[in-house]
């Protein structure tokens, strides 16, 4: 994953005190971080806790982030270290020990972040969400489906997709958007309470 200008801009805003910009980074990366942590921590509930802990650590450390690596690379390292520390700590303590002994000053921010992160209840939706998305994708016209798959699954840039699909970059941008819009029509009702 390359350096993202969008991430850079969001990080800069967090560093200038805009906490809501960090929410957007969490929304963007939470599934990837939970999945990454899940490679180390097998218990799903623990994996969620560790992922949350990793985001909290990242938030606290963000003022010192200098952008020498991409934000995601940096976040990735924090998540892996947090997962490894969790495994070490878990091997030393009896089960069911509460890990949430945070410093007083951080309590408010942590509670804020907990509301943003996935909860186990939300994760239960994942299979339904996945099947809904796959079904919606399967009903897209070929050109939209190919464009969105090349972007989301293969991670190609718009320029590369334009080469593959032999069309202008503007067309790629439009196709990807129309694909997302069509899937979103199915996804949005699913996520509304």
């Amino acid at each position: 994953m390359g350096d993202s200008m969008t991430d850079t801009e969001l990080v800069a805003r967090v560093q200038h005190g805009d906490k809501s910009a960090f929410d957007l980074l969490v929304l963007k990366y939470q599934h990837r971080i939970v999945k990454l942590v899940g490679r180390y921590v097998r218990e799903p509930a623990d994996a969620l806790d560790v992922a949350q802990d990793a985001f909290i650590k990242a938030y606290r450390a963000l003022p010192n982030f200098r952008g020498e690596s991409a934000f995601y690379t940096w976040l990735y390292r924090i998540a892996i270290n947090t997962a490894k520390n969790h495994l070490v700590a878990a091997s030393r303590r009896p089960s069911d020990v509460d890990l949430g002994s945070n410093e007083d000053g951080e309590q408010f921010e942590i509670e804020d972040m907990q509301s943003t992160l996935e909860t186990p209840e939300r994760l239960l939706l994942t299979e339904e969400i996945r099947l809904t998305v796959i079904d919606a994708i399967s009903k897209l016209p070929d050109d939209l489906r190919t464009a969105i798959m090349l972007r989301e699954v293969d991670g190609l840039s718009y320029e590369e997709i334009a080469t593959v699909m032999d069309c202008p970059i503007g067309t790629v941008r439009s196709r990807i958007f129309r694909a997302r819009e069509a899937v979103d029509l199915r996804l949005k009702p699913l996520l509304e309470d």
Partner: protein
Amino acid sequence: MNDERLSALMDDELPGDETREAVGQLLAEPEARGTWARYHLLGDALRASSELTAAATARPQADNIVPFPTRIQTKPAPARSVPRTGLGLAAAAALAAVALIVASPRPGGEAQPTAVALGTATAPPAGATSVAPIAQPVGGLAPSPSIEPLPTANISQTAMVRDDEAERRMNVYLYDFNDKRAQQSVPGMHSYVHIVGFERP
């Protein structure tokens, strides 16, 4: 905020000066933030399905996948200096066939594996019977002689069927394609072929 602009923003495809402005708009509009979250969820769901596909094809199980019959010998591919050739191969693979086998839960019952055959690059003539696309090996690879064409006369484009023979053929195809892909550093075909009816890894 214009959702097409948001879509390009999340792909990091806006020019630098527009990115700053678009992020400002995104933060100011709660509805745009919701769209941001759902668009990312969409991508996560697609990647998760792709990984299930990869896991299913990488770990053949006796119940689900007939063991790969015969390895097809290929010559090592010459080194490529023009990446566009690889992209062309990916495009050919992407457009060759897209197949989905989705575990569709039935009300009150267990999930039943079903196959959804998706469109092919060439639309069938009007009135003709739609057929499931048959993935053909790319780049000079030939299928094993033991593999007969899949009978397709009774399979409509949206038919929901489980066809072991189709799965076997698709697996053979994927193995072949991945061999070829590894030699040419080309994105994998399996990204487009979803076989997610198997058990979770």
